[in-house]
């Protein structure tokens, strides 16, 4: 039990992600997460507005169950499996965040500056999360996949579009971290 409660090293997490991919394919489906955003749009009635969403979401019941599993797994992890959320980050990372005015750095998974209730109920904080969400949802569907679908599934099956998408992910992520976050905080 002690192992379960400790943070898992990269060489535990990476192989177990590969195991998840293996099981997903072994169960007869294509591994990925972001198509679910479209499926949820379809379920919410988006097909009335655009033909793009006129799909039979019941064919993706397996993926919706996977999503329900992700949510349940998140609750289990948050409440029972992560008594210690401290992240062992580099001194230079702490310094950079400290310079931006971040406090309580890396003592928990999510910084208060973005994820606290106070931040969420400020106009700026709400917009930061909401617009990030829009960018994730729009970008992943435009690119045709996310970290699971492109970076793991696509790269490992040697698909060129996935390499381009991952290059895009890093262009966006680097701009966000080096230029946008310093502007926001």
């Amino acid at each position, binding site marked *: 039990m002690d192992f379960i409660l400790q943070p898992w090293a990269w060489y535990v997490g990476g192989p177990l992600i590969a195991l998840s991919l293996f099981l997903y394919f072994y169960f007869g489906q294509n591994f990925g997460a972001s198509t679910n955003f479209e499926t949820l749009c379809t379920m919410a009635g988006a097909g009335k507005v655009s033909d793009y969403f006129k799909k039979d979401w019941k064919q993706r019941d397996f993926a919706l169950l996977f999503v329900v599993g992700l949510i349940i797994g998140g609750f289990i992890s948050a409440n029972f499996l992560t008594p210690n959320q401290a992240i062992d980050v580099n001194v230079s990372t702490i310094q950079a965040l400290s310079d931006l005015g971040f406090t309580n750095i890396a003592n928990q998974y999510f910084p208060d500056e973005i994820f606290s209730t106070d931040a969420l109920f400020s106009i700026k904080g709400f917009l930061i999360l909401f617009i990030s969400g829009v960018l994730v949802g729009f970008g992943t569907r*435009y690119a045709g996949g996310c970290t699971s679908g492109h970076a793991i599934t696509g790269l490992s099956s040697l698909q060129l579009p996935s390499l381009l998408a991952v290059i895009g992910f890093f262009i966006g992520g680097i701009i966000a971290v080096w230029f946008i976050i310093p502007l926001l905080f």
Partner: protein
Amino acid sequence: MKNIKFLVLGIFFAIVLSKSQAISWYRFYEMFRFESFHMFGIIGSAVVISAIIMQLFKSGKIKDVNGNKIVPKPKQKGVVRTLVGGTFFGLGWGISGACAAPIFVILGFKSLPALVLLIGALLGAFIYGILSKKLPH
């Protein structure tokens, strides 16, 4: 119900992401600053092991639970869609520290902020759907 295994797999995957800290904002912040090996180790080892698994699928040595050959769906081609779409995705990922699957996992950790991210992501997917015929791919 035969698809219940996907629910169990979802729980497992969420626990793996949570325990290996691959849902933490700080882990992606340091990744995009190239100041830590952790996320590169996770994604890199996952890709290398998955590449071996893909070869076993391709050669037909491993078939799926129904005995069918496993063929990953070909990704849609297009330099603009992958690079530009990928950059949009990376911007959202870099700011919020949340990509697609973790948004659902974070609902268990930080319910309200994750709900705002999720509603935003659904709106983003909806906007793409409406514009998809007009956008360059």
